[in-house]
C-alpha cells in the first residue's frame, strides 16, 4: 500500500481531523489563559458534575424499577438524591448560562458552543418533564393531564402521549439522556478545542 493510499483512507482522515482539532494538550490541558480567573467559571463543570450524579442516581433507580421508591426507604432516599441533583443541575446550568451570556461567549467562532449549550438546556427541560410524569404518583397524574392540553394543541399529542407511562419512561431513561449526553459531550469538546473566550478588547487595544 502506498503512503498516499493510506492517507486517503477514511480512518486516517478522521484520525487526522480529530487530532488536529483536539490534540491531547487541548483535550487534557495543564494550563489555561490567565484571564480565566473568576468564580463564574466553576458553574460549567458543576453542571457537568451534577449531570453525572443525576445519571448515577437514575441508574440506581433503574436497578429496582419505577415503583421501588414508593415502598422502600432506601428507594425513597435514592429518589430524593435524584430530585436534588436535578435541582442542582438546573441551578448551576442557569448561572452558567447567565455568565456565558454576559461574557458573550459565542465570540471568535464559538457560536456552535452557545447553540449546543442552549439546545442542551431545552433537552434537559424535556428530560425533567418526562421524569416528572414517570413518578407514578399524584404529581405525575396532574402534570400529565395538564401538559396534554399544551402538547395536544400543537398536534404533537397524537405522537407524544404524555398519558402513556411506558412511552414517557422510555423517553426519560433512553432517548433524552442519550441526547443530553451527546450534546453535552459536543459542547465540552468544543470548549476544549476553541478554548475559553477571551475578554472584550479594551478601548486601548482596539486598532
Amino acid at each position, binding site marked *: 500500500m502506498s503512503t498516499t493510499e493510506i492517507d486517503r483512507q477514511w480512518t486516517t482522515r478522521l484520525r487526522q481531523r480529530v487530532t488536529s482539532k483536539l490534540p491531547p494538550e487541548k483535550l487534557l490541558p495543564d494550563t489555561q489563559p*490567565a484571564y480565566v*480567573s*473568576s*468564580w*463564574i467559571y*466553576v458553574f460549567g463543570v458543576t453542571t457537568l458534575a451534577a449531570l453525572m450524579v443525576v445519571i448515577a442516581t437514575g441508574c440506581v433507580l433503574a436497578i429496582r424499577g419505577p415503583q421501588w421508591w414508593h415502598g422502600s426507604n432506601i428507594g*425513597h432516599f435514592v429518589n430524593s438524591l435524584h430530585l436534588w441533583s436535578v*435541582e442542582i443541575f438546573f*441551578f448551576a446550568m442557569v448561572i452558567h448560562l447567565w455568565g456565558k451570556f454576559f461574557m458573550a461567549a459565542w465570540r471568535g467562532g464559538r457560536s456552535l458552543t452557545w447553540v449546543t449549550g442552549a439546545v442542551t438546556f431545552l433537552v434537559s427541560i424535556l428530560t425533567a418533564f418526562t421524569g416528572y410524569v414517570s413518578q407514578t404518583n399524584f404529581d405525575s397524574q396532574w402534570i400529565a393531564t395538564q401538559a396534554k392540553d399544551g402538547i395536544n394543541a400543537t398536534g404533537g399529542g397524537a405522537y407524544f402521549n404524555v398519558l402513556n407511562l411506558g412511552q414517557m419512561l422510555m423517553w426519560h431513561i433512553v432517548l433524552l439522556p442519550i441526547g443530553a449526553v451527546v450534546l453535552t459531550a459536543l459542547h465540552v469538546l468544543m470548549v476544549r478545542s476553541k478554548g475559553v473566550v477571551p475578554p472584550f478588547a479594551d478601548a486601548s487595544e482596539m486598532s
Partner: protein
Amino acid sequence: MNWATSLAALVPLDHLGHYLHWHWFLISVANLTVIGLMVVTFIVALFVPFPGRRRREDSK
C-alpha cells in the same frame, strides 16, 4: 431493614406550601428561595476574588 428508616427526611416538606401573592403574581416560598439563591450566587461569584492571583504574583 430497621436502619433504613433513618433515611427519612429530617425536615420533610410535605406540609402545604406558603405562597406569596401580589396581584396576578404568585410564587411559592420554595421557588422564590431557589431563584433568590441563584441570583445571590451569581452576584457573589462575580464579586468574590478568585484564589490563585497570589500564586501567580508569587511566581513572577
